[in-house]
């Protein structure tokens, strides 16, 4: 099914078209979310929420962007919102802790093991994901889209609704920040390596 045909059927509320959309793009949405939230269950929730929003708001989709670009935008916004909520919960975790309700994840985020990383790279990837978690929002999104989704600078600019120059700058700063964070980490832990 080509894109204009799919869009037309989705706008008519066709269930089989929605099924085709989920099957085709679930990997894209899930992989975008998992890198930002760094948790498999949360990424699964965000994937569901993204498709529900798509189903409910497909009438307003004008077709001026590609479906994938639209899906990326929704998934990224949902994932970033989720991260903000999590940060707020983490801020309030000490109060929950008084009442014995705080889960340890909020107070001390666990290391993230991406399921697609090769076994020999697992240890370094955990350290890299911890460094990615410390990047500012936009740098994290740009770096994830480029490194894990393999998107070109032009595609990232379209998804993030920004200029090509801004994407280049974001990626440059992201790499510099990652190097600095990793350097600091290894300097403190080199004796243990």
């Amino acid at each position, binding site marked *: 099914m080509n894109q204009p045909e799919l869009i037309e059927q989705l706008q008519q509320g066709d269930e089989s078209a929605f099924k085709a959309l989920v099957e085709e793009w679930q990997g894209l949405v*899930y992989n975008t979310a998992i890198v930002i939230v760094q948790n498999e269950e949360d990424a699964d929730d965000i994937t569901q929420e993204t498709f529900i929003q798509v189903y409910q708001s497909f009438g307003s989709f004008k077709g001026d962007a590609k479906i994938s670009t639209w899906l990326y935008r929704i998934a990224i916004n949902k994932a970033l919102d989720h991260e903000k909520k999590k940060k707020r919960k983490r801020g309030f975790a000490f109060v929950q802790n008084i009442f014995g309700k705080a889960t340890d994840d909020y107070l001390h985020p666990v290391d993230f093991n991406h399921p697609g990383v090769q076994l020999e*790279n697992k240890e370094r990837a955990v350290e*890299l994901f911890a460094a990615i978690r410390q990047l500012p929002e936009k740098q994290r999104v740009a770096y994830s889209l480029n490194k894990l989704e393999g998107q070109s600078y032009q595609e990232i600019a379209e998804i993030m609704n920004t200029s090509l120059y801004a994407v280049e700058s974001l990626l440059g700063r992201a790499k510099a920040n990652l190097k600095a964070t990793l350097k600091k980490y290894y300097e403190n832990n080199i004796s243990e390596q």
Partner: protein
Amino acid sequence: MNKIKNINELIEEALNSLDDVQRAEPRPFLLTRINARMYRKPESVWEKAGWFISRPAIAFTGLCMIILINVAVLMYNNPSNGLNSTAQSVQITADEFSYSVATIYDIENVQP
């Protein structure tokens, strides 16, 4: 020198660790879970209110406000202070006007 070289190597290794990463797969039956979530019965107003009130932030703030209001009420309406001043003013008024209760018994039994 070796330490610096080692650190730089580790940084490069970390940055390259995602080069041949495979795509992660969502759990099976995603569409079923999406459908279940979409057609879930909407919560009633009371359920929503209960959920809102039971949130730790709201519950804690509410508890603090109740305690603060109680403390404020106790501080500004101290009942012992209020009674003392009322009793004092009644006494002063009674003294000034030499007010005493006269009954029919007092009038009829005047002492010689």
